[in-house]
């Protein structure tokens, strides 16, 4: 018995054309949310149906695909999407940043800087940055159209009033090319500066909300803030407990049930590459994690 075969990259060609048209429009108007006819995908909403459709539409037979989830190549979401495209498109997959031509991501931008020619596809749960401030879609569209963005600052004001600093740590709103306010998907604000003037093409797909938006290469992306409370990224006191990297985004890993924990790179590829290059934790760092 032969199994039914899929069209290349699962979606039919007409659907891919429709998605490509939406992508082209999104690239033409950086930060603007383009509606598209999102399809049912063989995975639940929230698992990256938007990102998967964008990837399927841009994927070619020669592409090398990397999929990360929270920076890791080996988590459920990343593994299942990678095998999905390996199966339906037969494309090469990789975990190494320099080899990839398309990177689909959930919640992170890799530590290795993106280079020209690469495309990064973000999985977006809620594309509308004004959603929790203004529930009406008709109103938020008008606000985008008329560039009425005072409300975003109301949210940041509330943060400072309640916490003494801007406590939004992920999905931190940005202004694109001095025009559209955009939700950069739930990446940590640590990654926000990486979007600015990136040489790679950045595409955002929201499957349930049926929106695609994009940042063409070398686009100005500014994180919103107050003059007296400027935007700043998370800082970590200690380096990665495995590869000793500083200035990277760290995950907390619980190691036992007695309060033991360690902080390691959230980007597994970055961490593995560094360890292969011979970086190892300082002995002192070990002592610290053990005494915590």
């Amino acid at each position, binding site marked *: 018995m032969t199994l039914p075969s899929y069209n290349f990259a699962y979606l039919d060609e007409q659907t891919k054309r429709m998605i490509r048209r939406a992508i082209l429009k999104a690239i033409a108007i950086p930060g603007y949310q383009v509606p598209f006819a999102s399809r049912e995908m063989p995975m639940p909403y929230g698992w990256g149906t938007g990102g998967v459709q964008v990837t399927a539409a841009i994927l070619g037979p020669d592409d090398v695909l990397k999929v990360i989830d929270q920076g890791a190549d080996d988590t459920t979401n990343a593994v299942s999407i990678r095998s999905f495209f390996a199966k339906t498109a037969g494309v090469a997959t990789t975990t190494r940043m320099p080899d990839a031509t398309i990177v689909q991501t959930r919640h992170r931008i890799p530590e290795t800087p993106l280079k020209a020619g690469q495309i990064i596809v973000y999985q977006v749960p809620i594309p509308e940055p004004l959603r929790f401030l203004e529930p009406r879609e008709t109103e938020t569209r*008008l606000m985008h159209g*008329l560039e*009425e963005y*005072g*409300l975003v*600052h*109301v949210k940041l*004001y*509330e943060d*400072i*009033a*309640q916490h003494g600093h801007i406590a939004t740590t992920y999905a931190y709103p940005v202004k694109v090319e001095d025009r559209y306010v955009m939700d950069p998907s739930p990446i940590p604000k640590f990654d926000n500066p990486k979007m600015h003037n990136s040489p790679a093409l950045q595409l955002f797909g929201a499957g349930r909300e049926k929106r695609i938006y994009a940042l063409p290469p070398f686009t100005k992306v500014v994180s919103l*803030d*107050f*003059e*007296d*409370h400027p935007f700043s990224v998370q800082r970590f006191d200690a380096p990665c407990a495995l590869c000793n990297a500083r200035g990277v985004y760290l995950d907390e890993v619980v190691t036992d049930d007695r309060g033991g924990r360690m902080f390691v790179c959230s980007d597994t590829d970055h961490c593995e590459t560094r360890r292969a290059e011979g970086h190892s934790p300082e002995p002192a760092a070990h002592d610290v994690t053990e005494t915590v």
Partner: protein
Amino acid sequence: MTTSPILSVRALEKRYGTFIGCTDVSFDLWPGEVLAIVGESGSGKTTLLNCISGRLDRSSGQVLYRMRDGRFPDLDDLSEAERRFLMRTDWGFVHQNPADGLRMRVSAGANVGERLMAVGERHYGEIRHTATEWLSRVEIAAERIDDQPVAFSGGMRQRLQIARNLVTRPRLIFMDEPTGGLDVSVQARVLDLLRSLVSELDLAVIIVTHDLAVARLLSQRMIVMKSGRVVESGLTDRVLDDPRHPYTQLLVASIPES
């Protein structure tokens, strides 16, 4: 005092199909003047207010507004962006139910600061300073600045709504039964506050009310409406002391003597 009106309403009409919301309404409003629109429920007062303030499309007629730069355009000729900008800078709208005019789940400070941020203020310290100042002007304790309006009493909410509207120094305020849902003592306090702010800031106000006492206290001029039409207009004292139209006479006579 300037001699040109800040707002001019010409033959305004609003129809819902064949039903008349309000019709043939014309009046001028001068800077610093308080105009009361009175009438019973269903007489078209709120419809008129909403048509003038652009919250409702009118069927025919003109509403001209004196812009800060001296132009006097019909509001329908402005672009949507201009109209919305006007609404959150030069105008204020005080709703009967404060929940309609406030963000109930956002702190009092942010409620007052929202308009400032909307016009481009980006300095947290200054926004907060201005908010604190306005809260004290409407007699809300400064330590409540980070509380949400859901934790406020009805009178406090109404005063917060007033502060939120006045923070951008508007020239024209629309009020729809601002003291409608408040008990008598709180009502007196809000009215007192309104009266002092109006004279202090030299505001032009159009206030809709069914309460003739409120009209007498706040307004210099009044319009009496019945079934969507203006039946009488004139100086408040004149209308209340010497009502001419039978309906106005009925209204005035129905105030219980105290």
